[in-house]
């Protein structure tokens, strides 16, 4: 990975452990952390990100709204949904809402990187 062109990723999850883990694993990326949907939207309003990784079920503002806000505010930003509530319906709803990928918790690092790479590739195209 070219570190001079670090991709910016916004991580949105109310679970601290998930935030910590992602920030540890994705330390090579330009990371921004948000612990709920509100905070994420605020970040999106301030700047653009290459990728947003968001949880779905969060207090106050949900992941669906983050997906919607991202596509509204930053149409070029790719959004990847990560959820513990994994069902075909949730996944299809997320994709229909504008997400480019859906990752069910618990996920492996390999899956995570694959989905991130796919998403960033899609963005570059």
């Amino acid at each position, binding site marked *: 990975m070219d570190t001079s062109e670090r991709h910016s990723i916004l991580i949105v999850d109310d679970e601290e*452990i998930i935030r910590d883990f992602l920030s540890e694993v994705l330390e090579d990326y330009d990371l921004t952390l948000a612990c709920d949907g509100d905070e994420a939207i605020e970040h999106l309003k301030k700047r653009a990100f290459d990728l947003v990784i968001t949880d779905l079920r*969060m207090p106050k503002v*949900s992941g669906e709204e983050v997906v919607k806000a991202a596509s509204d505010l930053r149409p070029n930003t790719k959004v990847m949904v990560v959820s*513990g*509530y*994994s069902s075909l319906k949730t996944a299809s709803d997320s994709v229909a809402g504008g997400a480019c990928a859906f990752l*069910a*918790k618990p996920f*492996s*690092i390999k899956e995570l990187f694959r989905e991130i790479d796919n998403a960033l590739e899609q963005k570059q195209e």
Partner: protein
Amino acid sequence: MRPSWLISGTSLRLKFAVPISIMVVISTVIMSGYLIDQQSDSIGRELESRAETLIRMIAINAESGVLFESKYELDELLRVLYQFESVEYCRITNTEGVLLSSYGEMGADATEVHDVRLRGRNQAMLVSDYVLCRIHNHLMYVQISPITTEKKQLSRETLGMAAGVDKSLATPTILETIGFIELGMSTRTVDRDITQAKTAAILLTLMVVVTTIIVVVFTVKAVTKSLTELVKATDHISRGDFDTRVKIDQQDEIGHLARTVNRMAESLLQSREEIEKYNRTLEEKIIERTQQLEDAQAQLIQSEKMSAIGQLAAGVAHELNNPLGGILGYAQFTLEKLRKNVPGATTAKEIDAYIRHVRDIENQARRCKTIVQNLLRFSRSSRGVEFEEVDVNRAIKETATFVEHQLQINRVHLDISLAPDLPHIYGNAGQLQQVFTNLIINAMHASGPDSVITVRSKFSPALGEFGGAIELVFSDNGHGIPKENLNKVFEPFFTTKEVGKGTGLGLSVSYGIIKEHGGEITVESEPEMGTTFTIVLPAQESCVQTDNLENKDRQQTS
């Protein structure tokens, strides 16, 4: 209770013995009186008849003596007469009343009587007469008879007849009284005979009376003995002692009655045994049915719980998947790092990172364990549930973790406000969590997005006989319950949800659980304003004092 002999024995004996004895005595006395009377009459008539015969015999024989006034002849006649029994005196007078002969003492009274009687008679007296008079303090039977002689009556007609004009006509004769014979017979012998007869009759009467009374008393006793036994037996039977049997082996009506009573007791015994048997069967059936009902209820509670768990599955999955995500991620990450590590070249920073990651894994695994434990406690079978001290606040918090995600999906906020000094109660945490889940999920279904469900716990301390209680309030600002449905919400199978969306058992089961905990659950609702369920649970007295400190600690840690 009066003794049985007093009820029937004596009174029955008296009832029988007294009238029978009186009847026998009266009839015997009447009969004896009649017999004595008859006997006296008979003896009197015999005396009269003897006197009549004697006097007639003397009167016939005295005709010549009187006609010729032969004292010797008359004395001889009277001497013979005087020898007869009971003859007190006898005398013969002519028609002028001149005494021609006499024998025996007649006494002054008799003479007077005799004179009085004779003065009343004319000379033509032809038949004998008698008079009963008292002489020397005893009755005397005095018979007077005329002494007659035949006289030929001569007239012209009779003379013609005698000359043979008419041979068919005989010379008529007339009887002429020429004197009187008087016979005084003492009634002393007769009186003695009569007295003897009377004595005999009285003795006989007494004997008959005594015999009758004895016979009657014994007979009545024999009869009433059986009756008393019958009464005793029926008394026992009437008191429910159906094993009693009358031991009378007679071939009469009482024997028949005894056998009937025995048969009755036998059939009563059989009936009672049948009833008891039926009762036992009924009790067994009731126990069996009650068991079936309890089983069915337990199954209902269980199925309702499973339904709630089903509804919570998403929340539980989310709860588990988050820590599992951390665990899996950190494990893979650390493994990868360690694989790439050159032995002996690990920096302290790297080691710190490994320790941190493994600790995170440990913490998240514990979190998973807690979730699974909660789930297990919640899903534990309601059969044979054990009651123990329950921290209601903790049960509410654990319930909240299950439903939180579900609420988030529906964008319903749960506002929990718990009293810090809440005492423990005696109950089953799993069951209570089932109730709380049910109330919260129901509230969620009734509420729209961005609504709030509030859960409050409060402690009402003991006051007098009231031993202190915990009050839990579950409120929502949802669409409420129509008034007509308000009193039906706790009924089984009552639901306003679409078919397949609700079992209609949630509130009914909740109601049963709260009742089992000795508590109350009530509902208030205003359509389009919201619904409030209030649960009151009795506080454990022993828990009221001891758990305050624990609660404070827990509150701080939480």
